[in-house]
């Protein structure tokens, strides 16, 4: 049997390893990305391979008239929350940075900070509630992916691939923290990939991001203190 890491795609092949996957201790981690043993799943047999979009969906692209529908109506502003607007503006700030427009990036960052400052506080913020939120996100990615596939929107599909993997890693780490407490993070570092958001625990950043494959220098070390 072969087992696949749902976060980075690492394959644990019973045929090539000394210890069968089932016999590994619960504390065993993915050697590539550090994901928990529970983030592995048995490789699906070819016949039932995660049932991806059947060929018919690909063969029947949507009529152009539908695809041309405007992404947003002018009334859209009312529908976006301060949190969404903050992410929207900090995304555009990054877009300006990539275009080598530092002044514009700074202005979008100012807007992003404004919306972050008016985002209402969460009443029941707790690690347990974050764990529950991450869990429901993992669940909801399949619906998001269907919406993307139905619209033949491969950019949105890419967001699902990266986002779901990183969300699984976050969920895995938050659950481990709930079980192991401060011992999980004592005398070691936390690294965040500044491209896809993948989080890694270890003394040094991984050579390549297991999710988006950027080099180690794209990782940022999270410092303690306020």
């Amino acid at each position, binding site marked *: 049997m072969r087992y696949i890491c749902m976060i980075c795609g690492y394959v644990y092949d019973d045929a090539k390893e000394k210890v069968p996957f089932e016999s590994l201790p619960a504390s065993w981690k993915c050697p590539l990305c550090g994901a928990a043993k529970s983030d592995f799943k048995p490789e699906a047999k070819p016949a039932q391979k995660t049932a991806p979009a059947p060929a018919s969906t690909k063969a029947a692209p949507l009529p152009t008239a539908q695809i041309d*529908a*405007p*992404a*947003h109506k*002018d009334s*859209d*502003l009312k*529908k*976006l929350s301060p*949190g*969404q607007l*903050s*992410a*929207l503006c*900090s*995304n*555009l700030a990054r*877009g300006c940075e990539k*275009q*080598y*427009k530092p002044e*514009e990036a700074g*202005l979008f960052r100012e*807007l992003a900070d*404004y919306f972050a*400052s*008016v985002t209402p*506080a969460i009443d029941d*913020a*707790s*690690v347990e509630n*974050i764990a529950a*939120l991450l869990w429901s*996100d993992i669940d*909801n*990615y399949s*619906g*998001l992916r269907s919406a993307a596939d139905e619209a033949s*929107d491969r*950019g*949105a599909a*890419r*967001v699902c691939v*990266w*986002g779901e993997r*990183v969300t699984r890693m*976050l969920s895995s*780490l938050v659950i481990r923290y709930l079980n192991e407490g*401060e011992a*999980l*993070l004592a005398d070691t570092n*936390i690294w*965040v990939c500044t*491209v*896809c*958001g993948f*989080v890694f625990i270890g003394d040094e950043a991984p050579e390549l991001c297991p999710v988006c494959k950027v080099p180690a220098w794209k990782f940022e070390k999270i410092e*303690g*203190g*306020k």
Partner: protein
Amino acid sequence: MMKTFAVRNLKLCTKDCLCLYVCPSGATDTENSIIDISKCTGCGVCADACPSGAISMVPWFYPPQQPKKDSVCDALNAMAQSKMDAEKSALQISSSTNKDGLARLMKAVAKSERLIAEDIMREAGYMLPQSHNTHVLLDNLIKNPPEGFPVEAAEKLLAMLPDNEL
């Protein structure tokens, strides 16, 4: 052909300085290592010569972004909201705890969720700062600013980034 200009990524630059030798206008030879775009002719010779791949040619004007369907945007926006709720919770926990590990983990969660949400908003119709969507959004915010909104920053952005879909 798109009209372009050269930019240098200082993180990749290994100071081989071939760009200085090949540039016909002297745009690459500056005291702060930033290529002088007022001199750059867009010929691309520096980018071809650079051994470290640190110079890119980027366009003055960007093509319109890909149109997005409302069904996709709605689904993306819902996921972004959840990500931003998690960011807010994580920041609150991080700033109120006195446990070093938890504070760092929550900072990492907040940063990660923000990056995921940014990527989602990019695909939800806000890929380009120059897009019509961005203009409509900024324009609406200027006309009906929420309390404390930095109107001046939004006005500057509208002036600096012409709508590339007009």
